[in-house]
């Protein structure tokens, strides 16, 4: 129990850390007033700029500003989006479902493909299935996702005209972005599964299992796989981060209306509060997913649950 509480507290600390970074970004590049006003400042008098500064509260000491920032954030108030004319947080939450949809599909796809392939490779080392899977995995890890995206668009969107190259709405819109996003995780998880399995196949308790005369299938599943999954589960937690972050590029290329694309656009149009809201929300999701994975790990591995 104390492990759970400690873990939750850690997550809270992480999110706070991110909020501090996100907050201070505004100050790192100079006077926040000028950043927000941008070119508009050229047309304003010094007095108007000063009024603006006071109105925005930028004249207060930084710790008061941070405190009010946190106070507002807890209520979901991240400021106002200049380009969208909506509260910044609302901009993010409107786009969140699309990102989650894409990331989840990619996640499930990666698990469904990588783990069975990894197991098959480990059980048949150096045979054709292994060699092909390993080669494909190598490609998956080496090819940059944006390049793969463009290739897919060219082939399936332009040449064959099977799939739409942009936007969202139907399941066909989901196919290419999901594949492009899942490529790297599939490759990495497959190799991880394979090496974890190969490692465990050598262990003494697997020899004991064989010595009991149980079927090879049981040996591979109940004994090898069950133990191999432990390191894989940890890696999957980190993957949540990748999927959320990788989605920025994929969403932009495919015009998928998610949080990632929104943040990129907000950066371009200096819509600062949207960027801040987006970063913190993503961090929160990332921390929660990792927390769940860690807790799941301690539940799966009976040795951890028992403490010292």
């Amino acid at each position, binding site marked *: 129990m104390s492990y759970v509480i400690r873990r939750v507290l850690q997550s809270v600390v992480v999110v706070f850390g991110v909020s501090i970074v996100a907050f201070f970004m505004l100050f790192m590049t100079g006077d926040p007033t000028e950043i927000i006003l941008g070119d508009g400042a050229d047309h304003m008098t010094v007095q108007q700029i000063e009024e603006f500064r006071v109105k925005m509260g930028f004249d207060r000491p930084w710790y008061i500003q941070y405190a009010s920032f946190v106070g507002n954030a807890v209520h979901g108030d991240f400021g106002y989006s200049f380009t969208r004319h909506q509260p910044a947080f609302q901009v993010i939450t409107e786009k969140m479902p699309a990102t989650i949809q894409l990331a989840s599909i990619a996640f499930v796809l990666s698990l469904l493909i990588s783990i069975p392939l990894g197991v098959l490779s480990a059980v048949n080392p150096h045979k054709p299935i292994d060699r092909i899977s390993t080669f494909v995995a190598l490609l998956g890890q080496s090819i940059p996702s944006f390049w793969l995206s463009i290739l897919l668009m060219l082939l399936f969107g332009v040449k064959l005209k099977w799939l739409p190259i942009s936007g969202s709405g139907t399941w066909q819109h989901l196919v290419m972005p999901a594949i492009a996003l899942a490529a790297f995780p599939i490759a990495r998880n497959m190799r991880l599964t394979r090496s974890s399995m190969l490692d465990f196949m050598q262990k003494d308790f697997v*020899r004991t299992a064989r010595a009991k005369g149980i079927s090879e299938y049981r040996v591979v599943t109940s004994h090898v796989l069950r133990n191999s999954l432990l390191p894989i589960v940890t890696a999957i937690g980190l993957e949540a981060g990748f999927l959320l972050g990788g989605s920025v590029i994929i969403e932009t290329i495919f015009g998928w209306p998610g949080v990632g694309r929104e943040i990129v656009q907000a950066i371009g149009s200096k819509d600062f509060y949207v960027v801040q809201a987006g970063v913190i929300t993503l961090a929160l999701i990332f921390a929660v997913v990792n927390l769940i994975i860690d807790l799941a790990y301690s539940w799966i591995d*009976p040795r951890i649950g028992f403490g010292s």
Partner: protein
Amino acid sequence: METSVSSFAPLEGGRQQEPALLEVRDLTTKFYTVDGVVNALNSISYSVRKGECLAIVGESGSGKTVGVLSILRLIQSPPGKIVGGSISFKGTDLLKLDDNALRHIRGGAISVIFQDPMTSLNPVMRVGAQIIENIMAHEALTRRQARDKAIEMLARVGIPTPAKRVDDYPHQFSGGMRQRVMIAMALSCSPQLIIADEPTTALDVTIQAQIVELVKKLQSELGTAVIWISHDLGVVARLADTVAVMYAGHIVESAPVDALYARPAHPYTIGLLNSLPRLDARVKTKLEAIGGLPPNLLGELRGCPFAPRCAFATDICRAQNPALLEVEPSHGVACWHDRLTGGRA
């Protein structure tokens, strides 16, 4: 180079009439590694009778583990490969069995107790489940019945509160208790032969004594034959009916236990016994160490493997490997100048 044993029928243990339960003949195993071919076993032969305890003694590199785990084909293959010989269990050659038939025997008629109970049990599976798995693979019982049997086995090996402990994980047991779990698992399908690969080496001496007594008791209760692999000549003196001494992949001497300790014939056996300090020695006699280094198993070997370290080695020892021949009833030695008869060279 060959070690022909056709002239010597391996250990009868004094009961000539009974056919052997297990008979290993001319077993040869090689390991094909990146550094070359390792000759782990060179045409070894031994046998075990029903209810007998055969101890196989040797140091690291002697081939004792490979020589016994080959019985159930539990050697990593690749790089290991059984290249010759036969292993006859109740009349069937185990080396000719297909995988399915072999699986039937593993854990059933022949079971194994491994050395390190910490690493030899699945850490994320309850011990009861691991025993039940063994039972269900060989006997037509329901899950409930199998579970009851598992609890009964745990009680039999002296684990207190077995009905509760059956659902515990291996790391919740101490080393000695874990080894008892392994023994319970090995006994669960009433095997006729148990292979014990240095089961007490990793345990404290008082726990070792407990386990040795347990195995002896179970052996006499159930009439199971045991092959006990060890490097500890003290434990072997307590447990064994017959002993086979191995060196560099050869069996260099085999005899009933009393004969081996009272009248050792092979210079290596003699050297081993002399290099052991005696707990009960009143007068301190200097330990006679065997000089030289442990054998190198890479590549082909000419002559007797012990020749480089043997005080009595002559030219014929370096040229030709001696066969395992009887020097007194049931007592075989592979030596050109054995210390009992003076040799045959």
